């Protein structure tokens, strides 16, 4: 378990704990009630978090460049 993996905890805190504090209509952000905006922004942040983890995780650094799929044929 590399320390970068701990980043994966952040979305759980943001949504499961954050909801207790974000449960309100105002202020409206981008036309959405605050609670909805809060959850939407966390969905986007999850994607960002996972991209960062993917980049830094040594498990994804093989001899192949990231764009190339290792060709595995199992049939």
């Amino acid at each position, binding site marked *: 378990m590399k320390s970068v993996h701990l980043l994966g905890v952040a979305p759980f805190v943001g949504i499961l704990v954050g909801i207790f504090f974000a449960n309100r209509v105002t202020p409206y952000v981008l036309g959405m009630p605050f609670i909805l905006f809060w959850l939407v922004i966390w*969905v986007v942040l999850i994607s960002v*978090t996972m991209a960062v983890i993917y980049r830094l995780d040594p498990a994804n650094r093989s001899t192949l460049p990231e764009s190339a799929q290792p060709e595995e044929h199992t049939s």
Partner: protein
Amino acid sequence: MTALAIIFVFLAASMGLGLRARRGKDMDLEQWSVGGRGFGTIFVFLLLAGEIYTTFTFLGASGWAYGKGAPAFYILCYASLAYVISYWLLPPIWRYAKEHRLVSQSDFFVSKFQSPLLGGLVALVGVVAMVPYLVLQLKGLGIIVSVSSYGHVSPHWAIVIGTVALTLYVTVSGIHGSAWTALLKDIAILAVVLILGIYLPLHYFGGIGAMFHQVDAAQPHFLTLHSSGMSPAWFASTVLLSALGFYMWPHTFGASYSAQNERVFRRNAIFMPLYQLVLLFVFFVGFAAILVVPGLTGSDTDLSLLRITTASFPPWFVGVVGGAGLLTALVPGSLLLMSSATCLAKNVYQLARPASSDADTARLAKRLVPVIALISLYFALNGGSSLVSLLLMGYALVTQLFPALLASLAPRQLVTKQGAAAGMIVGVAAVIVVTLTGTSVGSLLPGLPQAVKDLNVGVIALILNCAAMAAVSAATRRTTTTLSPASVSV
């Protein structure tokens, strides 16, 4: 009739794709159900997305936004958190499955715990959980066909027609058909949801902000979670429970076997959450419908998206929406049917007859498809629950597989097969008792603080499950080691 004709074109197209995908492929059990493990990022993405964007997302999410308001937002969150979990959960499962040439979810448990009986139990839990999910798809199909025929086809007949179409589709195509139709479905549903979600608020209210202000004025407290009942505690526990259960569905678990390599999952964990944002537009449609087509109650709230569509658009567009909706039921429905048939044939039937050959099992799996379809049809015609409550029940059941799965991934054996079985049985029994008697945490333990009372009952079942699993494992491990110290598998 224009609308119905267009829906029929969608059905014919998906059947055509299914037939084409099958041509030239040798259909043994592995080909039929995991596509020979040859799918890359895009295809696995489509398959898993194909499973997620079901009639539930389309009709259930808008229906809950319409009928319940803010509690519907849970639907936006749980899958996104499940993808976070998938980054670490799926690669070891995939690796193990590939090494041991596993086909179904229960194979995994059979192999990990060295117990075909446990595999049979897992298969049964999976199938029992899938039935409400399948019922949900059939009900969705019925709603779509009957509303877009402007009442010409009765809901009952619509459900029957939908079931026949689904059964034919699965028998014809297997998983290759699912993947191709998933592509068609994703394009159609994305287009339809974006058009509806952007156009309707603009057309009726002048914008999303104006729409929410009017909803808030018409129904105060509708846009926040309640202080009891569907409170933040309910929200957090339901999101967590559903996120844990997300990959426990036999069809999702099984679809993950079809990946080409484990990096597919890690990369998908980045993009899949963004795909969830499509739901936002589904919510917008539901909220718009509150003011445009008011008055739907109970399980009729599931009609809100289609009602506002028929009220706002010409019949040909209603047909396109209905066609897209049909695909959202067909793709996941086919995966559900196929997985439950494979589960029963391979992990329950083979238990009774270990000598049966792979060809026999494959044949039986195909024969079971119409049987399971008929059982679901029965429940679809006779139950009155809304789509979301059906899904919540399925999730509470299937999540009971999570503790044993997690324990099995540890390098050392933490849980014995007896422990795993005891946990599942206790958990599933708790869910069933609670669902049938309509108990809530509050009614069981009235002295507790409100936040604890509002917890999703599935969480309580999960706690009981873990307790039983730990206790029985501790008891059985001692006897196993004293009897035969060498028997612990590596």
